[in-house]
């Protein structure tokens, strides 16, 4: 009887978290036509388009938030200080107030491969540092031993990566983007599906910078985030980042907000402002 009760509680919790809310934020508009035979009773209630084939009916469902997604959305978008930081990290507001700037996300599992030239102790610390991010929905970071299984390579550069060339020369190799670079492959909706990070280890005078640089640039590459002075020194987005053992709460919240949903559309700064407005009307009871 007790086991039965536990099962009932688990089931009701599961049903509750995947239940639809009737809230569509317009972040996912693409159609996925699937067989009507695969739908459960609840899903049959949210059919949007359909067409009939010779031996089946293919349907496209509405893209409503689940209860869990709505809860997460509300906790992020009604937090003014988080929203402010988020916009600074995702868009170039300091230099450009263009509301059409777009955000970037990974829409596939990240499979990181370290080239053998990256020291083992650095790899171990890096993996330990990033493992907690796997608790975030829609973001999965794996570390693979074979490059053929990877879509993200971290390696030592075989060409010189120049220092940042700043007029007054106030940035040296301690700047997060000095002697290191990353490049990403994106599709037409600004979704990342592969990346490469290279560090000029030979020319890095202070080798203790290797780990914080890798950690910081990897974090930036999770959303093409912008290095920012206004973030605290414990944040990986800060230009003054001080190496830390664990990821800060600030960064954790930032990445959770960024991956609360994988958008199948281009999402602009304007859209983020719109979501903030929407949250004010739909999150009153959340």
């Amino acid at each position, binding site marked *: 009887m007790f086991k039965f009760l536990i099962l009932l509680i688990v089931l009701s919790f599961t049903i509750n978290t995947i239940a639809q809310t009737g809230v569509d934020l317009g972040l996912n508009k693409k159609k996925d036509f699937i067989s009507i035979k695969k739908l459960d009773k609840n899903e049959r209630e949210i059919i949007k388009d359909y067409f009939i084939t010779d031996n089946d009916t293919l349907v496209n469902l509405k893209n409503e938030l689940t209860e869990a997604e709505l809860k997460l959305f509300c906790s992020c978008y009604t937090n003014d200080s988080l929203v402010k930081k988020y916009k600074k990290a995702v868009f170039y507001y300091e230099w450009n107030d263009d509301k059409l700037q777009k955000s970037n996300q990974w829409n596939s599992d990240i499979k990181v491969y370290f080239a053998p030239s990256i020291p083992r102790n650095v790899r171990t610390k890096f993996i330990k540092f990033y493992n907690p991010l796997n608790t975030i929905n829609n973001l999965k970071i794996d570390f693979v031993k074979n490059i053929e299984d990877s879509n993200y390579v971290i390696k030592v550069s075989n060409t010189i990566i120049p220092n940042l060339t700043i007029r007054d020369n106030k940035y040296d190799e301690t700047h997060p983007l000095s002697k290191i670079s990353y490049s990403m492959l994106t599709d037409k*909706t600004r979704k990342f599906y592969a990346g490469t990070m290279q560090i000029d280890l030979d020319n890095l005078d202070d080798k203790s910078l290797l780990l914080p640089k890798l950690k910081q640039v990897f974090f930036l590459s999770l959303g093409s985030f912008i290095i920012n002075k206004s973030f605290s020194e414990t944040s990986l987005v800060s230009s003054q980042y001080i190496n830390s053992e664990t990821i800060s709460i600030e960064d954790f919240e930032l990445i959770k907000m960024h991956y609360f949903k994988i958008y199948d559309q281009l999402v602009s700064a304007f859209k983020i402002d719109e979501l903030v407005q929407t949250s004010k009307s739909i999150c009153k009871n959340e």
Partner: protein
Amino acid sequence: MNKHSKVLFLLFSFLFVFGFSQDPKFKNKKIYVSKENFKRKFEASDSLGNIIIGKDTLIEVLSHPDLEGIPVRYEYKDSTFLEEYKKVAFQLYHKDSADTKTMKYWKTPIKIYFSEGMDKKVIKNIMSFTKEIEGAVDSLNISRVKNINEANYFIYYDDDFQFSQKLEKYRKSDYSIYWNKKSQIYKGYMRIIRKRMFSNKLAQEKIKDLFFGSLGWFKRSHELGCNSYFSNCYSENKQMSEFDKQLLQYHYSYGICKGTTKLSFEAQHKRHKKSLKDGRTDIYIINN
């Protein structure tokens, strides 16, 4: 004119290429073509007379060797499906153009040659994908050849021998296909940039995606989910969904006219659907 002849004549007057067949269904039927088509395809001596329907003059002809084909019953699809099909099958001239370029398709078997730099596991994965496509579409025949001279489709890396000068200029992995005047594709090249597609996993996903696109010079849709091969976005879970199969099967169905532009495709469907609505069930399409 009897009922069958009327339906046939409507088809012949409208479509670019139509003909007489040896199929018993078409024996003892009169064949009419529009004046424009007659001028393009026939000699004056081919005329057996003409009739006037409304404002159109139609000319009766006998069979013509170039126009022989197998008649296939017109394949009906509902408007939701046709709207999705049009979005992927027809490439625009430019974003504001009313009409499109013609749809393209493979008429001959596709014989793929993989360059020596291509990993065996990748080739195996690609060939298993092509088997899946063949299974879905009867008229597509895809095989691997090891002799370059037998191939009409070349897949290679940017650091292998370069089969296509055109692709050499591209910074990104891409394909290039060639077609004849009937919009039938007869040759294809695909070049993968190794530095970008640095793992087998990435390379095989890119090859499958590009290969699928090259089966009909498909325009990727921004409205379809990323798991669809017709979608413009990436997914590591791309697979031939039932919907992808339906669209591909339809593209290769002989129950629709091949090599048309979007406007003529729409006009044909409008007429055929009207004919069906009027109770006619014997609409046949002949593709050469």
